[in-house]
């Protein structure tokens, strides 16, 4: 009898201590490339996540549990990403991981999280992260081709069928080029010029002169600053009348500043809604989330929020939502994320399913146009 009591007591103590452990903190890991070549992604991601966690903990956490954050810097190096992911899982005992910032790092750690059964919400854009679907892996940025699809949809409406492509010869530009060419073939566009430039080129008039000699009726430039700004100035210099389209890679005020207000007038591109949230229709479901995120970011860091930081914002929102609905073990978080329906994020509305671990559609992008040095929704 005595023994029986002690077993019950022991059991009760164990139960309580487990309970106490669960009610204490939820450990979440994050891997970002805070330094290194992709630091323009990792830095705003880290800042966003730190800000959001601080904010949530100040409000009492999730269901009374505080979040404890473990952020590591992969420096954009897949080997480091692997070591740090192992550390987060084995030493820090995190229940979920946010990041990494780039596709290479993410692909490197997927086998590990699948084996250890820890949910991973990547902040990288590569299609292959969630296609084919992996049980424990999700991602928040829209797929590469969604921006291209949105753009071509716009061009189709404008009846501009002959495309000239001018893409930068790095991973971003070439991925865009492949996607655009594949989509163009599928949707009945003709690519009449397919030109390239190097990331550090300072003059693209030669390529543009060649394009000027074709019968293209839309020019699409795919790259990140400063190349597209040079292209924009060169188009103006050559007096080209053909409409210029850019990618979402330059959807910031910085691009207008570099290209100049005059030269960038009328340039149109698919952008995440964060760029133009103050110009959205009041009824837009994302308006509240976007303005809250941007305001909070400005208060904390004194600069405007970026789309990249938004990827971390959405990853965190997905995990918090899953913990609220489902529970805080890795298994429960994974199932919770998969059941997310119409969660409003910075990048768009997320609707996950067992066959879609990204959950974004074309509505993640808005066509915007430069009007007098500012972005306006394009019609």
């Amino acid at each position, binding site marked *: 009898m005595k023994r029986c009591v002690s077993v019950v007591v022991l059991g009760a103590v164990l139960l309580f201590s487990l309970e106490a452990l669960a009610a204490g903190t939820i450990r979440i890991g994050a891997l970002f490339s805070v330094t290194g070549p992709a630091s*323009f992604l990792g830095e705003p991601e880290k800042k966003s996540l730190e800000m959001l966690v601080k904010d949530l903990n100040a409000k009492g956490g999730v269901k009374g549990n505080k979040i404890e954050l473990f952020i590591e810097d992969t420096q954009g190096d897949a080997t480091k990403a692997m070591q740090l992911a192992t550390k987060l899982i084995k030493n820090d005992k995190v229940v979920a991981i946010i990041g990494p910032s780039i596709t290479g790092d993410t692909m490197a750690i997927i086998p590990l999280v699948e084996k250890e059964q820890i949910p991973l919400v990547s902040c990288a854009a590569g299609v292959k992260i969630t296609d084919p679907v992996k049980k424990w892996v999700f991602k928040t940025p829209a797929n590469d081709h969604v921006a291209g699809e949105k753009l071509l949809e716009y061009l189709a409406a404008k009846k501009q069928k002959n495309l000239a492509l001018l893409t930068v010869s790095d991973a971003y530009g070439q991925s865009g080029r492949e996607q655009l060419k594949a989509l163009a073939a599928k949707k009945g566009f003709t690519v009449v010029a397919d030109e390239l430039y*190097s990331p*550090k*080129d*300072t003059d693209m*008039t030669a390529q543009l002169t060649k394009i*000027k000699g074709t019968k293209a009726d839309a020019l699409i430039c795919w790259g990140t600053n400063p190349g597209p700004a040079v292209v924009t100035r060169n188009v103006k210099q050559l007096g080209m009348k053909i409409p210029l389209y850019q990618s979402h890679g330059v959807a910031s005020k910085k691009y207008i500043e*570099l290209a100049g207000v005059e030269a960038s007038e009328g340039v149109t591109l698919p952008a995440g809604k964060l760029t133009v949230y103050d110009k959205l229709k009041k009824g837009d479901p994302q308006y509240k989330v976007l303005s809250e995120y941007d305001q909070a970011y400005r208060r904390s860091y004194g600069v405007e929020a970026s789309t990249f930081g938004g990827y971390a914002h959405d990853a965190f929102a997905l995990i918090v939502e899953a913990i609220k609905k489902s529970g805080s073990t890795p298994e429960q978080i994974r199932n919770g994320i998969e059941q997310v329906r119409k969660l409003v994020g910075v990048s768009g509305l997320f609707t996950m399913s067992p066959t879609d671990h990204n959950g974004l559609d074309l509505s993640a992008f808005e066509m915007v146009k430069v009007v007098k040095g500012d972005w306006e929704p394009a019609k």
Partner: protein
Amino acid sequence: MDLLPQLTQYAFSGLSTGAIYALIGLGFAIIYNSTGIINFAQGEFVMLGGVLTHFFLMVLKFPLVVSMAVAILVATAIGVAFERLTIRPLKRPTPLSMVIITIGGSIFIRGVAMLIWGKDTHSLPPFSGNEPLVIAGATVMPQHLWIFGLTLLVIAANKYFFYYTISGKAMRACSYNRTAASLVGIDVRRMVFLSFAISSAMGAMAGIIIAPLTMTAYDVGVMLGLKGFCAAIIGGMSSGFGTVLGGLLLGLLESLGAGLISSGYKDAIAFIILLLILFIRPQGLFSKAQTERV
């Protein structure tokens, strides 16, 4: 569009890019001609010129001309300090060790610039308007004319300095034979010091004048430096028209290559030509065969 106006535009685009390469190439040639060193940090002074001007103009709100003058002064001071701290302390200066030092120096300067001014790209306002000029059906920017003008000015000043002033002649003497130069009473170290001051000032000037067109950031020096180096090599490291022709030729080939063959191979075309020149005419396209020069 006909082929002729297209060709004219390729030519103008090539020449205006080539003028930039030439201007940077001249900086390489000056140091080489007075010291025998190839200063791989030259591109970083081009970067410093642009970035410093932007800093003084936009952050400290100096007027444009003052910003430019201060930027050149600061860049020159950095060039001089670079020589004092890295080249001068060398006990036995061999070309190899000096080349490695300048490469190290360029990485250091770039890193510090990134820490101070961040990774953003900046642009400077053009000196005289943004309206393109139409010449024979092709267009150039007014800023290109500034670049052509400065290049001519630099060549003239070089010619005068190296052939008609005592310091210039002394610097040339050092490049022919250091020992002999010091025997006749030339302070070789002072001449090396001077050549670094001149070339960093020139690099900074080039950086400022091209920034309104090409924009500027902490890492523009690498590619521009490399292209300028190519121009100097094609021109046989002369501090006059050779390098300028080299730069213009390089620009033209790039532009025609991009226009007529394929823009994907643009840089490859330029560098293959550099290799061919190094194999076939290592003394440069426009020089006579190797003299007794170092």
